[in-house]
């Protein structure tokens, strides 16, 4: 029985020791920062990792994330300065910079997120409202984001939150505008298609007309040349004739007349009068 008592005492002492250790030491992880609260008052803040002591039962330790956190803000409709609605899908990268302020004003990350949501959205709305659609879309985007970040950072500083970055994940058009854009894109394309086809036809017509023209030119050039050739031939012929015939014009006449006689009375009826010289021997014989 003595042994039993001794054992019981040992066990109790060990358990008490463990319990004491658990309640009087606390560990801050590399990813965390801690606040020690004594009856609700902040006693100390630990941002470096390691093991620390506290008064058991009296001190209460709250730990917070030290790493960068990402908060994806729900998609919001915002209106640009040229009265166009866009759906802005923003997200914020933030971290707890001052755990004391954080615990004093917000207590938990869940509460912090609603606050970030409100503030970033409100600033996003204000800042985007100063720019027109195109600027939001592309040219002024970095400046806009920087402005939203700066404003949000200022607003959230008092909560112990640092806004590292605000970025626009998506800037989409509302559904009805998207449809309109599709329609416009379609009409642009169809217009382009029509133009391409018309240009094709134009080019085709031009080429055909050009071909017809070329063909006419070729033929008429040839006709021109042909006439020249014919003329030259005829002129040569005339020259040859006149050269020969001028040797004796009388003989030419005679020869031509006799040729005409020979060739011109085929299948015709010849009527010779009685006193025709041809028949002069006809009567002499009688």
């Amino acid at each position, binding site marked *: 029985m003595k042994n039993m008592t001794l*054992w019981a005492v040992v066990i109790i002492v060990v358990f008490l020791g463990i319990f004491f250790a658990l309640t009087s030491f606390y*560990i801050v*992880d*590399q*990813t965390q920062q801690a606040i020690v609260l004594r009856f609700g008052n902040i006693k100390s803040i630990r941002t470096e990792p*390691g093991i620390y002591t506290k008064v058991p039962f009296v001190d209460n330790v709250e730990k917070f994330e*030290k790493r*960068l956190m*990402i908060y*994806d803000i729900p998609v919001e409709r915002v209106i640009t300065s040229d009265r166009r609605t866009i759906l802005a899908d923003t*997200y914020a990268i933030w971290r707890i910079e001052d755990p004391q302020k954080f615990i004093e004003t917000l207590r938990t990350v869940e509460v912090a997120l609603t606050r970030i949501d409100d503030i970033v959205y409100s600033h996003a709305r204000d800042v985007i409202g100063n720019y027109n659609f195109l600027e939001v*879309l592309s040219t002024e*985007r970095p400046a806009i984001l920087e402005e939203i970040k700066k404003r949000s950072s200022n607003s959230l500083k008092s909560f112990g939150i640092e806004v590292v*970055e605000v*970025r626009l*994940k*998506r*800037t*989409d*058009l509302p559904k009805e505008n998207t449809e309109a854009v599709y329609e416009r894109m*379609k009409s*642009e*394309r*169809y217009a382009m*298609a029509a133009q*391409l086809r018309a240009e*094709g*036809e134009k080019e*085709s*017509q*031009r*080429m055909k007309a050009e*071909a017809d023209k*070329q*063909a006419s030119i070729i*033929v008429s050039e*040839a*006709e021109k*040349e042909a006439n020249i050739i*014919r003329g030259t031939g005829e002129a*040569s*012929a005339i*020259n*040859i*004739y006149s050269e*020969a015939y001028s*040797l*004796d014009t009388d003989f030419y006449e*005679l*020869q031509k007349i*006799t*040729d005409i*006689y*020979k*060739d011109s009375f085929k*299948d015709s009826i*010849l*009527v*010779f*009068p009685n006193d025709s010289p041809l028949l002069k021997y006809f009567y002499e014989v009688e």
Partner: protein
Amino acid sequence: MAEYEIFDPNDEFKNETKKGRGSGWWKNIIIVAIIVAIGIYMLTGVYQVGPSEVALVKTFGEYTSTTGPGIHFHLPVPFQSHVIVDVRTINKIEIGFRTTSDGRTPSYRSVNEEAEMITGDQNIISIEAVVQYKVNDPVAYAFNVIQGYDLVKSTAESVLREKVASSELEKVLTIERDKIAMETSQTIQEIMDSYNSGVQIENVYLQAVTPPAPVVPAFDDVNNARQDQQTFINEAQRYTNDVIPRAEGQAQRIINDAEAYAYQQVAKATGEAERFKALLEEYQNSEEVTKKRLILDSVQQMIENSKMQVISEKGDTLNFLNLSEIIGGEQQ
């Protein structure tokens, strides 16, 4: 396993006590229980690191060392703990689509609202992209950022949209694809570095870059129109290729005809002239006789050639002849 081996003799021990050895068995149970408890407790210090991983060991929450793959031991909770970070595996982020099943024939599903982006000229384009990254600084990755995947993904989406928004639809579809992928990769890396996140962007690949589905028919129509345009031109080319050689042939024919005609004229003239000269020579030799002969020859031939020869008493006899009857009768 260890606890079981220790438990076995325990059972044997129990049996022995039942036989009546009596006092002290409580003590033994407690000793064994304590040993088992300490054993289990020490096991919390054993950890295994996979081939692509490293383990970051923390002593009282503070990072102290990094260990590579293998089985390791550190002091048990709460003295030391560890986090394991994969540093070799290339992680893949999909923008605009999701892989629905891996394996030999992977299948994909489009996520339109993620894929559709606005270009600088206010058109909408659908882009599917893959971002590959790995952790190159495990300490920074584990201790500086939370939700590393979401961070890379949000940044990638945001940067890609920014790049697309600063370009034009036609360019994004064609020549600026590579440029956008490259710039996106660079910018994501810069942002990741500014967070000190320990993330290394390996590659950004633009996969399908297409017009959004509702306007695809219109885009196709433009492509068809380009084909049609070419068809028209080809058809005209065919016409040209047909018409011009024909005309050239025709032209050649016209010229050849003319040349033939000219040659013919000259030849005829030359022939006649030569004949004339020959006759003239004969004629000059005996002018009177030849003249008469020529006349009489021609008269003779004229008479021979004629169909009918009539000798009339007086010039008016012929008035009574019915010419058409004579010619017609002949024909019958």
